[in-house]
């Protein structure tokens, strides 16, 4: 079976869904930044648990995202391996101590410090990915662009972002159809083919995908212009939602988390929590 569901907004009617796009956007940005900067493992663990809980709460089914998750997981693992290959001693350098688990060749030994550092990276991935998915899948694109516009982004850019969000499912659909059509021509992209071959084959799909998408963009931008998009310096939004109490509450929680993250910098005298000291 390969009839997987697409990533995109769907009305879900729960607490997360009802927050305004502004709140969710601020939350995503603020939490990602603090989570990216901080290397305090305890803090990251809390964030990860919180983010997974939020994912649960948002009512997104695992099968809706399983496809994209497998993609991201593969890339994260690759990334973690690459980090080791390019800097096997980076953990040692960071924490200023060296506890060797296994002595390898040259710089390529395995240390607790390196493992711990990469564990931190790993936590960052599993905390940001659900957060981003929650944002993508629970935010009504039009409402989101009105929020962007409200926090000061130009409405042209806001609308472009919303259109991009909106067309994610369509582009995914196109991609699938194109890739199937390519397979029918004999381009083996399924697991039966060799990896190098599959990469080449995937590139083969990009060209038609780009052309189809460009066509789409051209028509839609004409349709928009014909209805006066871009005439005035500002525009109003049908989908705009007022901020509610739950939004303010959520923003407070986000602010609190960020503040705790900053306090931890002070406490640890830097971005890193060092269990080896």
């Amino acid at each position, binding site marked *: *079976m*390969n*009839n997987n*569901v697409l990533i995109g907004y769907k009305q879900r009617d729960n607490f997360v869904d009802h927050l305004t796009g502004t709140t969710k956007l601020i939350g995503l940005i603020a939490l990602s930044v603090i989570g990216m900067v901080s290397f305090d493992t305890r803090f990251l663990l809390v964030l990860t648990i919180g983010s997974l809980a939020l994912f649960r709460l948002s009512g997104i089914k695992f099968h809706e995202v399983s496809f994209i998750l497998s993609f991201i997981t593969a890339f994260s693992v690759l990334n973690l391996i690459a980090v080791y290959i390019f800097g096997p001693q980076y953990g040692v350098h960071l924490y200023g101590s060296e506890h060797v688990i296994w002595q390898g060749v040259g710089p390529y030994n395995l240390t607790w410090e390196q493992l711990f550092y990469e564990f931190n990276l790993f936590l960052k991935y599993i905390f940001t990915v659900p957060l981003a998915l929650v944002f993508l899948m629970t935010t*009504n*694109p*039009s409402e989101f662009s009105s929020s962007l516009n409200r926090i000061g982004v130009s409405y042209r850019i806001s609308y472009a972002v*919303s259109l991009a969000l*909106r067309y994610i499912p369509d582009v995914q659909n*196109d991609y699938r*159809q*194109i890739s*199937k*059509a*390519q*397979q*029918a*021509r*004999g*381009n*083996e992209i*399924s697991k*039966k083919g060799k990896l190098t071959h599959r990469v080449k084959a995937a590139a*083969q*799909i990009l*060209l*038609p995908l780009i*052309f*189809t998408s460009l*066509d*789409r963009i051209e*028509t*839609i*931008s*004409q*349709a*928009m*212009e*014909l*209805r*006066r*998009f*871009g*005439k*005035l310096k*500002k*525009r*109003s*939004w*049908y*989908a*705009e939602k007022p901020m509610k109490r739950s939004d303010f509450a959520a923003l407070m929680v986000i602010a609190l988390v960020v503040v705790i993250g900053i306090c931890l910098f002070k406490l640890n005298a830097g971005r890193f929590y060092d269990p080896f000291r």
Partner: protein
Amino acid sequence: MKKPIISFQDVSFQYQSQSEPTLHHLSFDIYPGEKVLIAGASGSGKTTISRLMNGLIPSAYPGELSGKIFINGESVTDQTIFDLSLRVGTVLQDPDTQFVGLTVAEDIAFALENDAEDQSVLKQKAKDWAKQLKIPAILNNHPQEISGGQKQRVSMAGVLVDEGKILLFDEPLASLDPIAGRESIELIDDMQKNGATTTVIIEHRIEDVLYRPVDRIILIDQGKLVANDTPNTILKSGILAKLGLREPLYLSALKYAGIDLTQVADVDSVGKVALSASTISALQAWVKPQQARVQTMDVKPMLQANNISFSYDSKQVLNKLNLNINAGEMVSLVGRNGVGKTTLSNIITGFLHQSSGDLVLNGHSINEASIKERADHIGYVLQDPNMMISKNTVSEEVALGLTLRAVAPDEIERRVAETLKVCGLFEFRHWPISALSFGQKKRVTIAAILVLNPELLILDEPTAGQDWQHYTEMMTFIRDLNRKIGISVIFITHDMHLMMEYTDRVVVLNNGVIAYDDQPMKLFANLDLLKQASLVETSLFTLAQRIKVDPEALIASFINQEKVVQTNE
């Protein structure tokens, strides 16, 4: 004397990207309250005229304009596309791409959002116009949740909110099934009657537009105005066929019966066309009783779909469907949009997997066969050629399937050349595909599939977006293929003419099963079945009723005659 609301005075236009002018010294006037059809074959320049009216030229398509164009007495060159949009509301060809908002309400309010109206105004107006167009129940629906006809209504509401004086429709029938198309024409007519609007329709399906009366037809050919007159005069003159446009079916029938159209009154409507006693008897004499076609009993089914079920998002799309396709057959697969025609072909080609049931090809089960393995026998041509093309030149594209199958280079060369010749593309073999027209691209995609020697070809809307002449070329080509190499063809289509003239069998899909599977003329004589298939009765049916003959016999006589005419050409 009334002043024209649209006036073209000696207008010529050349796109910046082209070496030849598209329009040559065009002059015509359209008066307030008129309903005018601008018709012409593809490439005649009719779309360019619409772009000049709504400001897409020069905003999106720069070029050189000479002559003068006045809208509402003001020269278009002094107005921006935004100014013009308040006067000329444009409904684009494809309601899908016209749909900018995420929901129906948002889309209706889009133009007003851009005028920065208050949210309360937006909500009120969206509600009002939804009510006027009889779509209040779907205000909060997403575009993918509504039908093609409803989308058309939303597009109309979206431009009607401006309360402009001119409505411009760019090929309103292009992406609608026949029922939705007919509703659209009724809707346009109602809007025209209710408001003080002027309506301009750009379309080449003349008979379908004339389902409701228009005041005038302007005919364009190769950028020049060739006729500007009442429908009656134009239809009598017989000029349509010369311009590569299809003439209404009932008029062709009258001609076949040897009737001189210039002697007939009110030819612009099948319901009103004056039928004298002598005309009726001439028609009745022309209609020959049909013998039932004898089914040859020893045909072996090439493809069998047994008890196929499929559900998507817990919705049952196909429910224990059974279908056989025989070798050498041309079959139309029809049904309303979203009924599962594409799903079925996706299951046959392996793009999707049935939840239960079996597919048998030439006596062997293909349930476990991969897409690629199935593609050696079953070729599938998608509706949009851009989704299939991945190489730069025509011959590379056609060779791709063979290259990937590691066929020897000299054999590839031979087979590609052969296929290109069959498809009439040989002289284009070194051309970049981007330089081809839509119809030629479509042909390239068919060639790229044919080169793999499939036994069965599935074509998704092969004739969409093509005018009469290109359409006839394409279909004749496919029919010749069928006769020459015995390939079986399934057409997924809404095109009733295609079903009647090019296929021997029509399969109607409804409620997840096959609702009809027989000759086309029987279907066209059965109003209930037509409705299930989202089709409408043709004017031949109405004509048969008026002259009191069996519709099936009249349609069959007509098809036979058309086939004779075409082989003689």
